[in-house]
């Protein structure tokens, strides 16, 4: 039961938000933002401890002997607790860096927005932990519905509502396809739990219907992950949605869906034909996501759109780790490490954007000209996050990328194998991505500013940037203990 603390904490935070929403006031909102954020970040540390606890012998005992209403649906293993920590971190950081945005740019319903983010984070936890299809699909749906609502939150801004509508229609479509696949998986195996599906298909000849069903299910996950070609919603939604929501959407659902993707497909479909099918889709999905994401990001003039495409590319990098889940133990560790790195650097980059747009109300790349003079803190933070997103040392993104490459090489890389090409595409894409991240940094430093007026950074968003900076640096400098925690938990996945 104690392993469920992250989920319970998030529901509690969300519920408090709804209560506050009944009688909103500026003070209450401020208190809620700060306390909720602190509680979630504290909870993240706690969840990290739970992950550590679960790797110990008696901790494993607790996880294994969970009551039936938990053990049939959730795998409360270290891997899932690591992602619970991630969910809490995302939620907490979103709370903190939303503070000024909510006060300045949203007229009312601020507590509701935060509450829904907390509920969505709860969905992240359960999605990463789910061990049977009903829970998985419910969590996906919870994330989706929260996403639709969040995207539409600026309801008198046409772009926000348009983003939500696009998100909704494409999301509902993908979830229907996923369900159609799910129905066949259920029909062919008679089971809904992942291990059961695997056992039922262990007999060898499983025909072509099951792989087809698996691929249909992949559509739903691909949508959440924003894997090409299911990424169409991503740039529009990221551009239209309120920026803190965009930040949340670019990290939260994506990471949880990747964790679920790795768990579902490696546990439920490890057998010949089905495996070939989903691995094939993932292979091309990864290659296309990386390449297209970076190529299109190059010519964006809106920074939110640019980060949207870059997040597609990052999904591609992480899909490489998912792709090799069945071949190496390192894959899940790589996924977790990259997930943490991505969380810090991407949320950090978004926090910079939020701080900037809180003041200037602009998201166009051009308006960042000369930011180094107007606000060195923001400009240098962007440099750090940008470099980390490219994957350069000594920052978190580098560690993540190294882990993914290591996981891929660990499979016994040979000359000319598909995996080798995947790796080459990956590293060359890192180079391409440098161009736009550093291009924006170049604008900040090399171009003259439009005005000399400084850009004040609010306390909340400034703190969030600070936390992300610390995370981005510490992940490499203090890599020993962090990696040992993540790696040992990734090795221990409850089936």
């Amino acid at each position, binding site marked *: 039961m104690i392993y469920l603390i992250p989920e319970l904490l998030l529901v509690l935070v969300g519920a408090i938000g709804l209560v506050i929403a009944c009688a909103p006031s500026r003070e209450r909102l401020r208190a809620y933002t700060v306390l909720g954020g602190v509680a979630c970040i504290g909870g993240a540390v706690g969840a990290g401890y739970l992950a550590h606890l679960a790797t110990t012998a008696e901790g494993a005992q607790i996880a294994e002997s969970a009551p039936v209403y938990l053990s049939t649906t959730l795998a409360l293993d270290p891997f899932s607790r690591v992602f619970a920590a991630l969910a809490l971190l995302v939620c907490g950081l979103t709370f903190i860096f939303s503070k000024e945005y909510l006060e300045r740019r949203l007229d009312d319903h601020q507590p509701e927005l935060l509450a829904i983010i907390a509920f969505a984070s709860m969905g992240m936890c359960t999605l990463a932990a789910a061990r049977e*299809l009903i829970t998985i699909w419910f969590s996906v749906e919870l994330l989706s519905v929260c996403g639709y609502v969040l995207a539409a939150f600026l309801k008198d801004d046409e772009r926000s*509502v*348009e983003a*939500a*509508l696009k998100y909704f229609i494409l999301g509902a479509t993908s979830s229907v396809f996923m*369900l159609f696949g*799910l129905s*066949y998986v*259920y029909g062919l195996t008679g089971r809904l739990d992942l291990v059961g599906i695997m056992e039922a298909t262990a007999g060898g000849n499983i025909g072509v219907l099951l792989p087809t069903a698996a691929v249909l299910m992949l559509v739903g996950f691909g949508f959440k992950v924003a894997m090409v070609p299911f990424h169409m919603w991503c740039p529009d939604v990221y551009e*239209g949605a309120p920026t803190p929501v965009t930040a949340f959407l670019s990290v939260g659902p994506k990471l949880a869906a990747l964790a679920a993707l790795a768990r579902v497909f490696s546990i439920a479909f490890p057998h010949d034909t089905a495996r070939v099918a989903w691995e094939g889709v993932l292979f091309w999905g990864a290659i296309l996501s990386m390449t297209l994401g970076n190529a299109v990001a190059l010519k964006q003039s809106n920074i939110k759109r640019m980060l949207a495409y870059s997040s597609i590319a990052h999904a591609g990098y992480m899909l490489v780790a998912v792709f090799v889940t069945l071949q190496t133990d390192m894959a899940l560790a790589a996924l977790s490490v990259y997930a943490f790195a991505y969380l810090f650097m991407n949320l950090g980059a978004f926090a910079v954007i939020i701080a900037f747009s809180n003041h200037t109300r602009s998201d166009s790349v051009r308006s960042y000209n000369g930011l180094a003079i107007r606000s060195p803190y923001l400009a240098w933070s962007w440099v750090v996050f940008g470099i980390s997103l490219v994957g350069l040392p000594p920052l978190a993104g580098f560690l993540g990328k190294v882990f993914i490459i290591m996981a891929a090489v660990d499979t016994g890389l040979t000359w000319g194998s598909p995996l080798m090409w995947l790796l080459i595409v990956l590293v060359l894409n890192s180079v391409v991505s440098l161009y736009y991240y550093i291009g924006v940094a170049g604008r900040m430093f090399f171009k003259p500013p439009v005005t000399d007026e400084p850009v004040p950074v609010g306390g909340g968003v400034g703190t969030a940037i600070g936390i992300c900076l610390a995370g981005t640096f510490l992940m490499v400098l203090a890599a020993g203990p962090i990696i040992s925690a993540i790696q040992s938990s990734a090795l221990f996945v409850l089936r």
Partner: protein
Amino acid sequence: MSIEDILPETVPTGYYLVFAALLFAIGLFGLISRRNAIGMLLSIEIMLNAVNVNIAAFSRSGVGEGQVLGQLLVVFMITVAVAEAAVGLAIIVAMFKLRRTVEADELKLLRG
């Protein structure tokens, strides 16, 4: 020879599956051809129902746990479909208020 002699006594599962597949295909057709958000949502509902029929049909042929699971899944699905439809319709209504249209072709504020 009456019609009852030609048709099987009980409905084979395959009939349900073909029916569901047809229903899904009809929904898919509507989803692609409709330009109107409400129309798209209606098509999605049809597809969801196809999935429900599919699962119920599979569940019918199971025993014990498998059968219960299927029905459980359908019940949950109906619940979620309601939630989704409510949010979707709310978004559509909000869209109407702002733009006086829900034609998908006219959603082009967001272009990169």
